[in-house]
């Protein structure tokens, strides 16, 4: 699932995911990226979470 969330409309989610700026990306609830990332960096983070196995 790829979800865009409007942070001002959902302040509870923004708090829960500690959004201090945008865009903020959260992958599988654990990996966080702040700011616009290059495609390479984005993909490497996605692969990183996959290597770590499913989130409990």
């Amino acid at each position, binding site marked *: 699932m790829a*979800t865009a*969330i*409007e942070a001002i409309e959902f302040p509870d989610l923004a708090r829960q995911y500690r959004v201090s700026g945008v865009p903020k990306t959260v992958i599988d609830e654990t990996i966080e990226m702040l700011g616009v990332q290059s*495609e390479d960096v984005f993909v490497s983070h996605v*692969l990183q979470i*996959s290597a770590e196995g499913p989130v409990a």
Partner: protein
Amino acid sequence: MDAPGSPRELEARLARLPNPVRLVFFTQTFGCDTCLSARQVVDQIASLSEQITVEEHNLVLDKEKVAKFGVDRAPAIAVVGEMDLGIRYYGVPSGYELASLVDAVLLAGTGELGLSDESLAAVAGLDRPVDIKVFVTPT
């Protein structure tokens, strides 16, 4: 040349949409100040191409659709082409995010992911679904 994000520019981009795209909109009768605005944006995008259709469901009442599309808030928009690739938007897609939603519609309608061959090969090796959330603001 029309300004990026202008209705004419968006319409021009959507003119090449080869396949149907559904904007599956979830609303809520009470406690959703922005649902009406979000629905208006969805209708605006749909008006730009005959390939785009809108269907509306109620987040509280339509439990089957809520489960099918995996949404838990309103307003929510699922962008669904031939396949459901899992693209969701929560909130009102205004300003720059309107262009982002149009990008999502083009992706769903063309199947063109816009990724490099290297990236596609890398993510093809994923052995399970990955959840990606991106927080945005309407600038």
